C-alpha cells in the first residue's frame, strides 16, 4: 500500500439515482503525475473531492500516503494540497493576506508563516502583486494564487482540479511550466483535465474517465498505441485518380485505404513499415502531399467512448469569474 502515494479502491459516489463515480481504482506512485482525463461531468471532480475528504464516498476506500480518507481524514488533510476548480481566494483581501492565513491554518506562526507565504508567492511569480487585493488580479494570476495557497504547507501530494480551465494559451503554458517544476521537486500530482494537450504535456500516466468509470489507463504513449497504428494521407493533384489509387493500395499492400475528395487515407500499423511500399505504389502519380498522422489522446478517447472530449464545452471558469463580479 505504501507503494502508492494515492490509492483508490472501488471508489464510488452516488447522488440519488446518479452514479457520479463508479468503482474507480487506481494507484499513483510517489513523484508521479497522474491525470484523470475526461469530459465535463465524467466524475473527475467528484473523485478529487472524495480523495480530499470533502465528500464521503458511497462505497470504496482510498488512502493518501497510507492514511485512510475515511478513518484518518485529519492526516490526509495535512498531507495534501488541493487546487479546486472554484476560485477560493478571498477577493476582499490581498494575495499576501490570503496566503498567510492559509499558512496559519496549517499551524505555522508568525515569521514562519510569512516565510512560507513569501516562498509560495515567489514560486508562483506573484510576489510583486502580493500586496494588491485579489479582486484586481487577472484570471491567470488568480489561478496561480490558488496554487500558491495550496503549496504553503509543502504538501507531498497535490490535487489540481482543471488547473488551467478557461485560461489563455500564455497563462496556461506558464502554469504548465510551474507544474513541471513541482514534479521535479518530487511532488505527487493528481491532475484532472479535459484538455488533451494538458494530459499529454504533463502526465506520466493518464486514466481516461467517462461516466464515472475508468475506461483506460496508461502512459500517453501506451494509450496512443492502442489506436491501431497511424494514418497516412496521400493527396493527389487530380481527384479523379483517388479511387483507383485506393484500390491499388489495398490490393498491393493489403492495407485499409479509403478515397475521399482528393485524398486517400490509409490506416496502417506503423507508417515506418508501410511507407517504403506505399512510395513505390504511388510513384508516377501526381502526388501533392503525403502526411502521416500519429495517434493522439483525442483519438484514443474517441475510439474508447465514441465521443469527442469537448462535445459541449461550456466555459465554466469564465462564467464563474463573471458571476463573482456580478455578485460583488
Amino acid at each position: 500500500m505504501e507503494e502508492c502515494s494515492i490509492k483508490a479502491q472501488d471508489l464510488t459516489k452516488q447522488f440519488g439515482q446518479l452514479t457520479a463515480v463508479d468503482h474507480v481504482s487506481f494507484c499513483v506512485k510517489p513523484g508521479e503525475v497522474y491525470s484523470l482525463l475526461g469530459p465535463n461531468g465524467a466524475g473527475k471532480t467528484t473523485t478529487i473531492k472524495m480523495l480530499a475528504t470533502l465528500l464521503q464516498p458511497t462505497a470504496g476506500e482510498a488512502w493518501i500516503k497510507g492514511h485512510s480518507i475515511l478513518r484518518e481524514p485529519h492526516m490526509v488533510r495535512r498531507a495534501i494540497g488541493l487546487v479546486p476548480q472554484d476560485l477560493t481566494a478571498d477577493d476582499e483581501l490581498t494575495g499576501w493576506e490570503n496566503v498567510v492565513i492559509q499558512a496559519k491554518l496549517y499551524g505555522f506562526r508568525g515569521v514562519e508563516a510569512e516565510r512560507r507565504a513569501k516562498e509560495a508567492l515567489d514560486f508562483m511569480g506573484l510576489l510583486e502583486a502580493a500586496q494588491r487585493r485579489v479582486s484586481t488580479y487577472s484570471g491567470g494570476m488568480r489561478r496561480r494564487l490558488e496554487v500558491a495557497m495550496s503549496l504553503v504547507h509543502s504538501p507531498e501530494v497535490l490535487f489540481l482540479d482543471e488547473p488551467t480551465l478557461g485560461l489563455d494559451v500564455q497563462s496556461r503554458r506558464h502554469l504548465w511550466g510551474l507544474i513541471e517544476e513541482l514534479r521535479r521537486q518530487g511532488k505527487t500530482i493528481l491532475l484532472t483535465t479535459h484538455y488533451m494537450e494538458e494530459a499529454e504535456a504533463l502526465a506520466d500516466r493518464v486514466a481516461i474517465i467517462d461516466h464515472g468509470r475508468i475506461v483506460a489507463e496508461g502512459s500517453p504513449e501506451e494509450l496512443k498505441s492502442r489506436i491501431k497504428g497511424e494514418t497516412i494521407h496521400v493527396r493527389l493533384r487530380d481527384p479523379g485518380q483517388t479511387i483507383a489509387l485506393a484500390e491499388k493500395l489495398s490490393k498491393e499492400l493489403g492495407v485499409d485505404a479509403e478515397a475521399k475528395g482528393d485524398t486517400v487515407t490509409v490506416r496502417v500499423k506503423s507508417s515506418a513499415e508501410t511507407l517504403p511500399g506505399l512510395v513505390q505504389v504511388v510513384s508516377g502519380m501526381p502526388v501533392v502531399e503525403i502526411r502521416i498522422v500519429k495517434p493522439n489522446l483525442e483519438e484514443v478517447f474517441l475510439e474508447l467512448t465514441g465521443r469527442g472530449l469537448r462535445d459541449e464545452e461550456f466555459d465554466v471558469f469564465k462564467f464563474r469569474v463573471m458571476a463573482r463580479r456580478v455578485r460583488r
Partner: protein
Amino acid sequence: MGATLVLLRREIKKWVGRRPVFVMSMITPLIWLALFGKSLNLYSMFNLEQPGFAELIQRIVEQRVLELFGTLDYFTYLASGMLVVFALFQSAFGGVGIVFDKRLGYMTRLLVSPIPRASIFIAKIMGTLFRISVLSVVLFAAALALGFQVKQGITLLDLAAAGAVILLLSLGLASIYATMAFYANNHEVLFAAMNLINLPLMFTSSAIFPREQMPSWLRAIAAVNPITHAADLVRYHLIGRPVNSYMHSLGLLAAFSLILFLAGMALSLRSLKESR
C-alpha cells in the same frame, strides 16, 4: 483554538476592510436612535401647560410613566431596548458572510485544511460578537450624546454587565443564523428568515414598550421572548428600571443562548460533513 483566532482575525480584517460597509454599519445605530427614539417621545404628550389642578394630573402621569418605563424619558427607555434589538439584527447579518464563504469557494479551502471543524463555526460566531461589541459601544455613545439618561450612581460594573447581557443574547441569536447559513444555499433565504423572525421577536418583547401594558396573550409571548429578558436586564443596569426577577431573566437568557449555541454547532458540523 489557534485556527479559531486566525479565522476570527480574517473576519475582523474583512469587516474593517470593507470601508463603505464599515462606515454604514457605524452610522446605522445613529439613524436608529434618531428616528425611533426621538420621534416617539411619549412623555411630552402628557406635558400639560395649564396651571393649578393640572399639576396634580401631571404628577399622576409622571408617576405612572415612571412606573412603566423606569424613566420619564421615553428616548432613554427605547434606546436601551435598541441596544438589544440592534444586536438581533447584527446577529442575522453574521449569517450572510457564511453563505458567501460557501458560495465563493472559501469554505472548500477551510474544509480541506486540517483545522477542527468547530473552529469554523466558533470563529463566525465570535466575529459576529466582535462586531456587535464595537457597534454597541458606538450606539451607546450616540445615545448619550442624544440625551440618554443613565441611572444615578451607575458604575463600570453596570456597563460591563449590560454589555455581557447583550453578548449573551447575541451568542444564541448568532448561532441560529449561522446554523441557517450553513444549510442555506443563498443569502435570500437568510434575509427572508430575518424578516420572518426579527420583527415579531422585536415587537413581542419589552424592547419598545413595557410588557405590563400588553394584552395578556402578548404578555405571555413576551415573557418567554429572550429579547424581553435581555432588554429588562440591560435597563436594570443602565437606567435602573427594576427587573421582576434578575436571576430568572438571566437564567432564561443563558439557557436560551447555550442551548442554541450547542445545538447550532452540532447541526452546523453535520452540514459540513457532507458539503457539496
